[in-house]
């Protein structure tokens, strides 16, 4: 392993530059270059497609993904992962839609997000107190939530479900013809997450736990409190993502946001957050979500079959992370 690093040092020295510094310190710069490159390819393949409206469409669809990926970023910073985001987002949307006729829009949203928080509490207790591996715990919680959702759906068969106007306005509509209204939710949310990570003790603790959990504990941090709050936050974020997504899709189903789980992990990984914890941030993740969204449109433009689309998607995840790992690797 050390020999490989030496070789890399040599090649870097021969070129006279050290691109690793840029990648390590500002991973967002090459990522934005990749994003622009992909947009250029789309434009080359179908001249005239890239317009204000196209861009706003990309953003509209990337926002729910970016919010789910926020949940992924935060948990990954501690060395965890949250694979229950898809089903929690779906559940939040479904509960909101079925409760709106009974409780009214506002209360239905609060109740739905409250249920999401409960799911997060479950994962948090498992990871924080019982020390179950987050991958397992969130998968298992996802399974329970999915089952409960099916039971709930059977109970609600007779009642009408409705997606309130506020949600479709936020999720799908645009102001002035081009600006997606979901930015009204997303921008404050992104600022809060950024502030949380960079300027609060809680955020720094997430990095600290991911970097060296043992040392963090010895420093007197109450690990379980941080982890439980983290997974509740993660589930609530997933819920918000689900609400915006159902507003965008305008149909609440039992598998609404489930296909977004792996892309959400991919967005965070491509965005430069280490899956082992301790390194990363939300800025990269947002660009990562945009990259994935542009990539999805690119494949749609090329009219490749669904199978090939998934293969390319997988290869891109592998390629980007491989390049990233190779360049930033310190060991």
């Amino acid at each position, binding site marked *: *392993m050390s020999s*490989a690093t030496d070789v890399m040092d040599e090649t870097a020295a021969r070129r006279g530059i050290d691109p690793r510094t840029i990648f390590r310190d500002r991973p967002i710069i090459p990522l934005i270059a990749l994003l622009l490159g992909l947009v250029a390819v789309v434009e080359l393949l179908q001249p005239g497609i890239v317009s204000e409206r196209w861009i706003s469409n990309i953003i509209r669809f990337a926002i729910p993904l970016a919010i789910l990926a926020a949940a992924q970023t935060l948990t990954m910073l501690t060395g965890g*992962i949250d694979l229950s985001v898809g089903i929690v987002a779906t559940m939040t949307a479904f509960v909101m839609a079925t409760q709106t006729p009974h409780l009214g829009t506002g209360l239905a949203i609060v109740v739905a997000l409250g249920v999401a928080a409960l799911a997060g509490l*479950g994962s948090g207790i*498992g990871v924080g107190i*019982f*020390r*179950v*591996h987050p*991958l*397992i*715990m969130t*998968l*298992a*919680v996802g*399974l*329970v939530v*999915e*089952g*409960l959702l*099916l*039971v709930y759906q*059977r109970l609600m068969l007779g009642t009408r479900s409705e997606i309130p106007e506020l949600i479709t306005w936020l999720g799908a509509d645009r102001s002035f013809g081009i600006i997606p209204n979901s930015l009204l939710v997303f921008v404050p949310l992104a600022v809060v997450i950024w502030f949380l990570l960079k300027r609060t003790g809680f955020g720094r603790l997430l990095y600290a736990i991911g970097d060296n959990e043992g040392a963090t504990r010895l420093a007197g941090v109450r690990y379980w409190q941080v982890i439980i709050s983290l997974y509740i936050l993660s589930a609530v974020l997933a819920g918000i993502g689900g609400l915006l997504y159902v507003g965008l899709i305008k149909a609440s189903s039992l598998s609404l946001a489930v296909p977004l789980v*792996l892309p959400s*992990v*991919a967005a965070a*990984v491509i965005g430069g957050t280490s*899956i*082992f914890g301790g390194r990363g941030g939300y800025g990269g993740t947002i660009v990562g979500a945009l990259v994935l969204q542009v990539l999805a449109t690119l494949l749609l433009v090329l009219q490749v*079959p*669904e*199978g*090939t*689309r*998934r*293969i*390319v*998607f*997988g*290869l891109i*995840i*592998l390629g980007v*992370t*491989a390049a990233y*790992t*190779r360049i930033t*690797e310190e060991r």
Partner: protein
Amino acid sequence: MSATTPATADLGKGSPGEIAGRFVRRNSWTLALWGLLGLMLVFTLTIQPGWGAPQLTILAIAALPYAFAAAAQTMAVLVGGIDLSVAAMMTLTSVCAAVLMQGQSEEFGIIAVGLILLMGLGLGAINGLSIVLTRVPDIVVTLAFFFIWEGAALLVLDAPGGSSAVWLRDLIIGPVGGFILPAELGAWIPKALLLLAVSLGVVWIPLRRSRLGLSIYAVGSDRLAAFRSGVPVDRTKVAAYALTGLFAAMGGLVLTMNTGIGTPIQGPYLLASVAAVVLGGVSLAGGKGGLVGPIVAVFILRLARQDLTLMSIDPNVAQVVEGLIMVAVVLVGAVVALRSRRS
């Protein structure tokens, strides 16, 4: 916790009592699992006094793909990784098998099985090579291959189709019967169970006694120490992932044998394989555990599902209960692991 790898445990000397004591200590988790399985059988018999050989056969057939998925995941976890593409590899090999055998003679089935098993080894080796060459974490690489194999399966077959040789289908249906054993005993041994034992045993038993098997445990428990002791870390990792692919291909074949067709949609085998590995006493940190535990765990989880059906519980509620059982299992497992780490 003792650092002895299970592979070396067999070499210990001592009086029969000591050996037995050591056996119990080293296999306490697996023994507890057998106990749990026994308790569940007793419970099954109390809620359904008529439970017998036919139900056992149904259980074995239902458990078969889960068991192979768990075996596949075990190999990846033992070497210190995890394979999120297990279910996708099963799907891909299953549709390939169904397409290969469509419209072909019964004899061609043998060649098809051989080809699919080789293909499994190849798929797994590609996973392993990618992990070793890119140095990207296992979980990310296999996440990427989750998409890739799934996409490949869709390209091979975009809707359920293909077919399976009849003798392959017969291989798992029904009990062994009075073939070699007395008929009463034979009725209690499902063909599916025999197939599982033989396919896993043929790979696992020689592996456990080989240098490669020892290397897998060594790399899984401490990569750096293994490297410094001269274990070819990268080659071992690729081999372990190739074996994951091999078991996944067996699982894929079983899917085709069971349904008679190939379906390009992934079953719930990924989560189930991880749950079985955890319940089976294989440490997710790698290098600890064996193959018997996860297989027993699969049967516990499948029997739990069968019991819920026997109690005529709504399938949706049954899924909640199944999920809660898994949560309970991993919580208890984690507490036990925590205890043993502290002591």
